[in-house]
């Protein structure tokens, strides 16, 4: 791993930690302190992470998506990018404290849990050299980021209903519900694109666009859960905490598909030919 890249990852991690702290000061209303700079600190973290990914990508000659380390970095990037993008429309920085800790947890996993030996960049095997795959993985990082944002907003919505102390510091339930819908819509569109580009890649690589692979099935399951979200909202008038619970469960499925599905597959004795 290049020195510049690993330094940038360390920098990302430090700034992400500072961002979580400053967003919590911000929520307490202590804007005269670090809280004032919360958004800027998070932006620096995103910039450092972007630079690290670009260096890694240029060195390897492809979007860095091979193995859990690279994908965790992409996932973190997706959360930061979608959150910072959406924050401008929120009109509040309150949501940061509920969303950035998710990126922080994934960052901790990537930096501290994954052994160093598994962090080196691997050359792409011929089957993975496809532009479809690169679009597929890039879109999935942003989709998962959007679902993380939706889940964080869901936690904020539930918290604001049970903790009276938060009243006035976070937006109203109706507003959070709207933001959550936007995040879920973005994630859903991207997840649909992820499935399409994955299917096209599979067709060119294996001759079959749908293979009943556990990863594919899990993505379809996640996608179906978000369909329940949309239809419940548009047709049955669901709002507020019911949708918040769905957004949190949906993100739970996303994370499980990523970090837990392999275990299930081994336990049950299924086979997966998915690469990450």
């Amino acid at each position: 791993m290049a020195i510049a890249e690993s330094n940038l990852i360390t920098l990302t991690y430090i700034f992400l930690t500072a961002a979580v702290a400053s967003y919590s000061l911000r929520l307490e209303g202590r804007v005269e302190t670090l809280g004032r700079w919360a958004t800027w600190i998070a932006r620096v973290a995103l910039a450092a992470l972007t630079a690290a990914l670009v260096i890694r990508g240029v060195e390897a000659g492809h979007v860095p998506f091979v193995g859990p380390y690279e994908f965790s970095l992409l996932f973190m990037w997706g959360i930061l990018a979608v959150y910072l993008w959406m924050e401008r429309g929120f009109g509040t920085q309150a949501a940061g404290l509920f969303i950035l800790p998710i990126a922080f947890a994934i960052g901790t996993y990537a930096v501290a849990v994954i052994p160093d030996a598994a962090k080196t960049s691997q050359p792409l095997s011929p089957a993975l050299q496809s532009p479809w795959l690169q679009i597929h993985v890039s879109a999935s990082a942003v989709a998962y980021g959007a679902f993380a944002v939706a889940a964080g907003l869901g936690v904020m919505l539930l918290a604001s209903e049970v903790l009276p102390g938060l009243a006035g510091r976070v937006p109203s339930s109706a507003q959070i519900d709207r933001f959550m819908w936007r995040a879920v819509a973005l994630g859903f569109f991207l997840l649909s694109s992820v499935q399409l580009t994955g299917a096209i890649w599979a067709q060119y690589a294996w001759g079959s666009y749908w293979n009943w692979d556990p990863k594919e099935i899990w993505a379809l399951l996640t996608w179906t859960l978000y369909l329940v979200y949309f239809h419940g909202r548009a047709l049955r008038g669901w709002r507020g905490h019911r949708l918040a619970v769905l957004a949190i469960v949906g993100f739970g499925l996303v994370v499980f598909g990523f970090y837990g599905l392999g275990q299930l597959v081994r336990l049950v004795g299924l086979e997966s030919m998915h690469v990450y």
Partner: protein
Amino acid sequence: MRIPTTLWNWLTSIRLAVILLIAFGLALFLGLLFPSMAPEVAANAVERGHWLATARARYGPLTNALFTLGLFDVYHSAWFRVPLVLLILSTAAAAFNRVRPTWRAINLTQVWMPDSFFDRAPDRELIRGGSRAQALNVLRASLVRRRYRVVVEEEPEIIHLYADRYRFARLGSLATHAGIVLLLVAVLIGGTISWREQHLVLVPGQARAVGHGVSFQVRAEGFEMDRYPNGSPRDYRSDVTVLDGGQPVLRRTVRPNEPLQYGGVNLYLLHAEPGPRGGYQVIFSAAHDPSFGPAVAAAVLVLLGLVLSFYFPHQRVWARIEPDGTIRLAGKSNRNRIDLGEELKNLWPSPNPIL
């Protein structure tokens, strides 16, 4: 007449849509809990016996029951097929049901709205100032800048204005639902008419038939591989000639991700291995699946529909301009209502050009 109507109402009911989606998700999950038997194995009594013997080590006396219940092949069993087919029917019925109302909503241009509407509309705004003509001009310019279509009806006293945008985006919902139905139908049909030859062994220089009633033959001319400095493969390829009626008609380099396509058949390069009598042989797989193109087209339709539904809400704005130049604004949006409220607030330029 009565039974079909009841059936139709049930099929298009709102509750059923949510129930079917949940049932479909549960069926997907069920399939993940049991190992699945490949169709080739299921079709061959000996292989099936071996497979079940292995499964018996894990499931013991339950094995036969699980097999009979179709749980070793959930996605081809009634557990999955029944919710899937109902989902297709229900989605199709819902889309069909929405064609007329959607078309009506797109073409409806109701300029005049009763007074009471302006008191009760979901989003309202009141703007004061200027002459009637000024008020109309400023409002119209602001709406046109935001890409609204504006229709005005002037009465001696009152000016009525109607504006809307993205009305054709209402077709997005139809595109999504119709696209999903077409996609699933394409996949289901593809499943019955496609075929796949997993293991096509080509000895370099020797032509052989592809099978499955395909008229032409294929011949591998060789196999080459490049490696990364660490020894792992970087690229491999094989030149393949297609012979139709004994004559070579096409020669292509086949790589992973770059299959050879001829006569509706795709030939995929898998790897090379030592041959049984020295030398080497190249392993391909062959597949014929005409549903791929239609399935991709249907999926693109779904994506297009999603963009229209999510990002282009059909927004309608009505204004009543009173003799003293007071404007009463009201708005309706088929989605993203809060955004329309914001928009109404910002319609009038600030600083106020009239006052």
